[in-house]
């Protein structure tokens, strides 16, 4: 493994509206939380103190869509006493980048018609690819919020209101124009989790924050010496694909 090197993500611009930036900042921790498997010094990296929204300019999402994504990330995986939240780990950046991969445009899905209704056990039968599920879905969810909450978008709602909207989408109760709220929510949550947990090379999980929280050694991929150890926790902090240590 090579020695840790500085995070090279340096696209410093200001994509967030002032309002959501302030909201995002308000959620950044003041005190470091206790993390398993690493010393306080190791967790106190410059990366974990950053607000990635400040540095990353979305190239897929438009400003209003981006505000939705940031707000949704903050509700789905909030910063709390258990560990870092999705926003501070750069999950919005991950999603924006992931939307521009072949995967998100249907590279591994069968996308030929006809598109028909089928029992849920037979799987997704829609004609939207992943990136369009997110784009259409969040547009429709924002339209719903504007109707329901005096013209306010999702990002402008109070946290409790945002949670209620997300819960209603999760259950499929929320009626959206053009798309099933359940399909939209399931893909959104999957993307948020993917960004939170995948290797930092993909834009999220800055400083391996989620791995430190759960005690995942990351990309070590060699446990020959620990298979039969029962009496103590696995001792090493994570490493990522670039060879950095957490």
């Amino acid at each position, binding site marked *: 493994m090579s020695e840790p090197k500085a995070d090279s993500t340096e696209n410093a611009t200001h994509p967030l509206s002032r309002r959501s930036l302030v909201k995002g900042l308000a959620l950044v921790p003041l005190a470091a939380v206790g993390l398993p498997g690493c010393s306080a010094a190791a967790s106190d990296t410059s990366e974990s103190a950053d607000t990635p929204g400040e540095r990353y300019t979305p190239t897929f999402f438009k400003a209003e869509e981006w505000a939705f994504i940031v707000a949704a990330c903050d509700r789905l*995986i909030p910063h709390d006493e258990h560990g870092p939240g999705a926003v501070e780990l750069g999950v919005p950046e991950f999603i924006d980048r992931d939307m521009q991969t072949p995967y998100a445009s249907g590279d591994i899905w069968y*996308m030929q018609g006809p598109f028909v209704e*089928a029992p849920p056990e037979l*799987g997704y039968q829609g004609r939207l690819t992943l990136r369009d599920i997110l784009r259409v879905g969040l547009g429709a969810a924002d339209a719903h919020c504007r109707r329901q909450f005096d013209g306010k978008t999702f990002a402008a709602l109070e946290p409790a209101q945002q949670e209620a909207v997300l819960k209603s989408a999760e259950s499929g109760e929320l009626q959206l124009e053009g798309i099933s709220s359940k399909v939209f929510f399931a893909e959104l949550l999957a993307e948020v989790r993917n960004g939170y947990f995948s290797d930092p090379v993909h834009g999220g999980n800055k400083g391996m924050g989620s791995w430190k929280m*759960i005690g995942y050694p990351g990309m070590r991929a060699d*446990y020959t010496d620990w*298979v039969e150890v029962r009496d103590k926790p*696995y001792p090493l902090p994570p490493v990522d694909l670039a060879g950095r240590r957490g």
Partner: protein
Amino acid sequence: MAVMQPKVDAVIVGMGWTGAIMAKELTDAGLRVVALERGPDRDTQPDFAYPKVVDELEGSVYRKFLQSLSQETLTIRHKIGDTAVPYRQIGSFKPGTGVGGAGSHWSGCHFRGLPEDLKLRSHVEQRYGRRFIPPEMTIQDFPVTYEDLEPHFDHFEHVCGTSGKAGVLNGVRQEGGNPFEGSRQRDYPLPPNRNYLGAEWFYKAAREAGYHAYPIPASNASGPYVNPYGCQMGPCNFCGFCSDYGCLNYAKASPNVCILPVLRLRKDFVLRTNAQVVRVNLDRARTRATGVTYLDAQGREVEQPADLVLLCAFSLYNVHLMLLSGIGKPYDPVANTGTVGRNYSYQGKSAVEMFFGEDVQANGFIGIGGGGTTMDDLNGKQLDNGKAGFVGGGIIWARQPGAGPVRGIAVPPGTPGWGSAWKRAIKESFRHSFYYEVQGACMSYRSHYLDLDPTYKDAFGRPLLRMTFDWHENEIKASQFLTGKALDMCKTLKPKAMSGEGWKTGSHYNVTIYQSTHTCGGAVMGDDPRTSALNRYLQSWDVPNVFAPGANAFPQNNGYNPTGIVGALTYWAAKAIREQYLKTPGALVHT
């Protein structure tokens, strides 16, 4: 106008386990062989090299080692009369593509068949009476016995460096192995792998329940090994990237590691990748194959004439090619005629998750695909099906192919899927939970079958394969019974919380949740050409210069993983080709 390639002795469709075995055996016999693989070439270097290969997003979300469904997939419906819809996203099963096929991203569980499972209908009829088998259940004996296959089981284990412990050696029971297995001529080439916590605790739980636990035979090398072909394997380092991934360590057996290094040096072996076979060409009488037509990387039609055609694609695509090419008669479930597509079966799986406190270091991120502990007390002849009330058995096992967080973190029942409560739960359970699984047999039925879809097409303009399948009452009963036994076993380990249940009565096959890649049948082997597409040598009854080795040949599925039987059957068929067919080309079985 198709480009015409020079004629060869044999053309092989697909370069996974069956294709690699056939290529080795037929070039050994002096044949000139061309293999056509629809996917790219792959090898440990550079495709499975560390660290790139362990990128969980690429492996388990982008699924870079699996087949993309954009070009080819199938349609699925639950019953005759329903409209089938495409399997648009990978869910319940994961076909492979590329050199190595599913044999490069499998886990490594490497079982032999049980003697009684290979003659299932006879066994059930003798023990429980003919009327115990429901009329719509179309199970059959394999047309080969355990004794026929034993040398081939043995050889394939030695090609794969399988790590395990014999339970019955030349008829004598051995301590520590599976006491219920068929007798073997010698032990596994390597001893069992070391146990992670869940595999170790399985012994404790099994003992309390009176079961006979033994190490899962794993084609994940427990030490350095050189196979009979001179191919080298390294010891498994429990990296945790097995299922879905190629092995970074030369430790998991694969065609790439165990056979291709030899093939690639042979001048009589030509491997063409990105070569999509679209049909087998037949003569006018449809009794002889003249070769295959494929699309090259650019999409140009190429014809490859050959004396012998070996269908070595993933089981479902073998059936697809037979249907598209007019090899044999398509099965019609209403008239109950034809054989191609008949007896599609699958496999049942359920899991029991156990959650413990911080003092239990389960460390699910430590992973080995095939390694673990299982038991056969509820499988094969050990299970009293008369009492249990269903046909077929199953196994319960501790397995831990490697858990990274992108692949999902199990949480106790009742935990929300997001927010602070979820975060707290994943943090508590990630290192301190593990699961035992049930893998159950799946019988074949008159109404479960494969044919061509009337509506949907693949990227090459061909009708997609259509699957008509659902869980039958028999399999639902089995799932409830076996999962109940697993829950009883798990309780003795005293977890803080646990979850898991068998399928609910009336529930349907769900393609969105990973279940098993053990799709079986559709072109089954048998003694009667009215009820099998292939004879006992995996030779088409109708077009004798076509052989179709693979899990497509299983008349129904048992409780084990299929690869051990698939490999042995392929060596069995290759032997028949070498020793009988090549001397007198033509049908090897006459009725």
